[in-house]
């Protein structure tokens, strides 16, 4: 199995676009799994007409306090790291679900076994497929839930066994450079960093590449300069950044066909295989699998 993380720092540079098309291209060689780890705003299913076959709720712990057993000692309140439990002056205990991380410390410290295990839904895992050899897993955070980083960790940890069944696992990552990204790139063999030739794209790419230095294993990193030829663009600065670090660079031109393929909900490599954009994507697939 080869794991490929598609990331890059800034939002809207074309991560989902590259991930979906890359997965499509790799699936013509061998069994491929596309993982949508942009759990706050998963978009792969907008770009790929995959059929969703199964939806699973992602649940985590919440305390259910048994009033009959509770001795009002307050240890749960005192030990709750998120301050999700509060004791009122009349010794009633209030629970704030939005703050709770599901760590179960309240249950661990309760001397009278008054804390029972309840469950709450934090999001969904969706399972689908497109054609014979491309499967898709989407992590989707429930709106209002804070803990997107942990959702990504769960998406990866709970599907390790599944990943092993594929030759290629392509992970569409969220923007940024925080812990969610670290969870993803730590598992990757290849990182495809998608940026755009703007000062913001460059600035966020640099921060993202710094994150990669924290990963101990050797990573193959490919820079994709998407929307190449954007007027007034900074293509050269991005290329310089890549050459400083010895990264191969692939340019994908800015093209209306990209938006059109989104609207058609078809990968551009299927819809316009002869376009310059598709040629760039084929080159990405070639570098990834070589």
């Amino acid at each position, binding site marked *: 199995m080869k794991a490929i993380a598609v990331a890059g*720092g800034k939002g*809207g540079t074309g991560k989902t676009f590259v991930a979906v098309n890359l997965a499509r291209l790799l699936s013509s060689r061998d069994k491929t799994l596309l993982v949508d780890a942009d759990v706050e705003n998963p978009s792969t299913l907008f770009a790929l007409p995959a059929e969703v076959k199964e939806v699973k709720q992602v649940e985590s712990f919440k305390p259910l306090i048994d009033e009959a057993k509770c001795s009002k000692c307050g240890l749960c309140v005192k030990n709750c790291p998120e301050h999700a439990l509060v004791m009122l002056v009349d010794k009633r205990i209030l629970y704030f679900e939005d703050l709770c991380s599901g760590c179960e410390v309240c249950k661990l*410290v309760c001397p009278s076994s008054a804390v029972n295990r309840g469950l709450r839904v934090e999001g969904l895992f969706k399972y689908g497929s497109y054609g014979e050899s491309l499967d898709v897993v989407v992590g989707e955070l429930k709106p209002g839930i804070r803990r997107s980083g942990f959702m990504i960790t769960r998406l990866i940890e709970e599907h390790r066994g599944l990943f092993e069944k594929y030759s290629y696992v392509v992970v569409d990552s969220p923007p940024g450079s925080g812990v969610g990204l670290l969870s993803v790139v730590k598992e990757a063999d290849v990182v495809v960093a998608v940026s755009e030739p703007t000062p913001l794209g460059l600035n966020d790419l640099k921060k993202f590449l710094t*994150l990669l230095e924290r990963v101990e294993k050797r990573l193959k990193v490919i820079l994709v300069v998407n929307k190449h030829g954007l007027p*007034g663009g*900074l293509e050269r600065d991005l290329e310089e950044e890549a050459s400083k670090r010895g990264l191969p660079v692939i340019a994908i031109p800015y093209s209306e066909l990209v938006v059109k393929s989104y609207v058609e909900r078809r990968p551009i490599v299927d819809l316009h295989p002869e376009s310059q954009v598709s040629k760039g994507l084929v080159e990405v697939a070639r570098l990834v699998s070589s």
Partner: protein
Amino acid sequence: MEIVVASGKGGTGKTFVAANLAYYMKTSVEPVVAVDADAEAPDLLLTLGGSGEELFEKPVSASRKASIDYNKCTQCLKCLDACRFYALRVIEGKPFVIEEYCEGCNACGIVCPANCISLYVKETGIVRADVSRSGVPVVTADLDVGGRNSGELVFLAKSEAYALSRELKAKHVVVDAAAGIGCPVISSLAGAHVLITVVEPTPPSISGAKRLLEVAEKMRVKPFAVLNKFDMPSSRIDDPARELGVEVLGKIPYHRSVVEAYVNMKPLLAYAPDGEVSKRLKEIFNYFVESVLR
């Protein structure tokens, strides 16, 4: 008033709108403090021209991590069963803390019979304040790479912005939020009065905006929308107001000057004040300040 600019999907133009709104308010009659709450990829100061004067920089320690004393550890591995966050792993019989996954809840410490686990506080990022070259005071939340608890960092940046706004007698705070709908965005919305959702006419953007609006409704922030790049080729969203169910403040066309302004490190309103896009922005912001903020 606290105004949050957010979007759900990345790259729709949050920073573009936030920077120009802050610049507009600064140059019109409304003094303002801007906050960059996109702590994983902060670009607001850059968009407003970079730092003209640094006001302060404060390190923030917002996360706790477990640490194991191996002189005392009996390798019973009870800590592994207690951790809900995949933050402990066994290597050669010993438990190891995966620092970035550790939430510092101390569940491992509570179950450890040898009392060998303690917590330490870790620096997670910085909050800094500058006056941008275009004259806008900007407070930036900047998360360390791989860091967590960006919500706390955003909360602290907003607190600093409020302190600064009192000092500068600024009535408004404009927050440039992160992409998505998770921790930092929720912290951006907490306590805010108005949300401006920046939407582009594509299905992923509309979907992201709807998810964001769900969060805003829960948090009782009054939502508005701005349609950016509305003339994007082959987009098929005819009526974003109906689609989203919120008032649309206006439509902004796509123009190359937007990128050029970025390259020149100036807000578009300063770079091309008489251009078509600036004209639209001014109409939108004028309406927003006169009709919404008043």
